[in-house]
């Protein structure tokens, strides 16, 4: 691991975040909508207004948000802010800053996201490897099939179905929310139990839909690896099926799978976010949902950039994991 390589990876990381931020900056400004004007339009509709004063308010808000400065100046200011993780103020929850909004909702998301992602990946990878291995018993290979069939089902729909059948019809699990209303959060068993109950359906929606994806990619990789000469040669050496599966097949197929995991992070996070919205869990997904409905642009942009940052960071970390897995990379 030499300096040049590390520098290159860091540069990549920075470029990704920069690209995302730039897109998020310029795209909305291409449209004719002005967030502040709309916001005040809404407020005015409910509260009544006098035209002259409204304009003065809008102008002063514009100034506060720095929207009256030339575009390029705004851009530099914007980039500068991002480096300091300052995403500005939330429009709908003013004067809460976007960063606060994110900070409040993040913990809920992380728990769900991390657990479901890791579980889906591990289960999917193992099932995928097994399902492509011709020597594995047929029933074992068959376990993967229902998951594959479920790949077409987006977690959101899965969530809807689960909520309907298990939550509504069977009433086994709660329909939404992070915990039952009226329960006070605290470090006790009752709360924890209730919390877990509420996490099951969202977790299932995410896991059931995404396991299939991992199964398929691992299976594809597995098939390719199977065709490799060294797997064949391992059989020539008279090694047991299990040894070949573990040392020659799995270990090699895992490499691109981990890469795939890094690339898929975007989708993983997005699905989690949307499912959250569906179940009304107070995480980033719901925050995003509410922001969309309220046209709270700073929050929307802040969340998008934040998530991009998180993904890019995870990818960066994974880049350092590869050499541990593949000796060929260590030396190149």
């Amino acid at each position, binding site marked *: 691991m030499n300096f040049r390589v590390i520098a290159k990876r860091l540069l990549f990381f920075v470029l990704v975040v920069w690209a995302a931020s730039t897109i998020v900056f310029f795209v909305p400004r291409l449209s004719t909508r002005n967030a502040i004007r709309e916001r005040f339009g809404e407020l005015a509709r409910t509260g009544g207004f006098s035209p002259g004063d409204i304009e003065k308010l809008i102008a002063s808000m514009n100034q506060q948000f720095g929207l009256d400065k030339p575009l390029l100046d705004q851009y530099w200011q914007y980039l500068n802010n991002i480096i300091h993780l300052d995403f500005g103020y939330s429009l709908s929850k003013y004067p809460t800053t976007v960063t606060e909004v994110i900070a409040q909702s993040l913990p809920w998301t992380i728990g769900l996201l991390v657990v479901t992602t890791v579980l889906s990946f591990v289960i999917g990878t193992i099932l995928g490897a097994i399902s492509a291995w011709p020597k594995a018993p047929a029933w074992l290979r068959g376990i993967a099939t229902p998951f594959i069939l479920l790949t*077409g089902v987006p977690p959101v*729909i899965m969530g809807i*179905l689960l909520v309907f059948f298990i939550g509504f019809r069977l009433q086994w699990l709660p*329909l939404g929310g992070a915990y039952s209303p009226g329960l006070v959060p605290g470090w006790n068993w009752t709360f924890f139990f209730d919390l877990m109950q509420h996490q099951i359906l969202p977790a299932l929606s995410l896991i059931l839909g995404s396991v299939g994806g991992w199964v398929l990619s691992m299976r594809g990789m597995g098939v390719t690896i199977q065709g490799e000469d060294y797997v064949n040669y391992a059989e020539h050496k008279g090694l047991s099926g299990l040894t070949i599966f573990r040392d020659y097949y799995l270990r090699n197929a895992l490499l691109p799978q981990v890469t795939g995991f890094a690339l898929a992070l975007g989708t993983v996070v997005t699905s989690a976010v949307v499912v959250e919205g569906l179940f009304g869990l107070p995480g980033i997904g719901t925050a995003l949902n509410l922001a*969309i409905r309220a046209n709270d642009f700073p929050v929307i942009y802040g969340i998008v950039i934040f998530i991009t940052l998180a993904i890019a960071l995870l990818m960066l970390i994974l880049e350092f994991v590869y050499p541990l897995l593949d000796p060929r990379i260590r030396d190149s």
Partner: protein
Amino acid sequence: MTTISESAAPDIVRQPSNLTLFFRYLRRNKGLAIGVLILVALTLFTVIGLFVVNPKHAYPLSAALKQPPSLKYPFGTDFFGRNLLVAMVIGMWQTALIGLLAGGIGTAIGVLLGFTSAYFGGWIDATIRTVCQILTPIPVLLIQVVVAGSLDKRDVTILTMSVIVAMLAWMGPTLVVRAQVMTMKERQFVSVAKLSGVSDMGIIFKEILPNLLPFIAASFVGQVFGAVFASFYLAVLGLGPLREPLLGNLIWAAQNQGAFFNGWWWWPLIPSFAMILILGALALVNMGLDELANPRVRRTE
């Protein structure tokens, strides 16, 4: 006693017709077969539906409100008075449009860029490749949310949806096509063609493209899948062309009106099932085409 054979040449291997080979392959690759079957069924439903139904019924206030499925309204109606059967037909047609359009755009860009990148190499290749790599980690869906969310609600139409969806989806096909063309460039049949005096364009069309077709086809289906998926998500979040009966829109509206709590279960469920069928079929076909493109996968069947 056998007749004396004068011919010295061995018999030509009798090739079964291409159609027979195709069906034999389908028998082995059941996933592809099922996927294609479902897609054909859905297409029939949509096409027949388009001829049979009155499109106006897919829009609000064209039928009795909140009716559960019955003979008169096979899929029921929703809160706004849309005949769900008609809505489904129109919605599926629109989804297909978005899928094909966005998929087509994405694939076309991908093929063009990937090919250019691989064929010309040098800094062109480096630039295109680096741009693709940088854009890949960006959560595409979220960006699409940003874009869709920034648009004036009236500007969101089927067409703009397609463009939005295709905007950030071309990186995958670009890299795939590029990888394939690169391996082909190195392989001997290209050098042989060059030596035989075939022009550059000739090489492109006669040698490289035919070999690329399976990959392009697989990429296209993947793109369609992605496009349908993305448009669905955007619609479910309420960012789609709200007037249109897109399946995602229907579900979003249902959630908004608390369909489950009010007992109008058919409203979100039926579009959900339709969506599962569409995405599932596309996924199967995609997998099947991947197999076709990768002969090694075929060998183990």
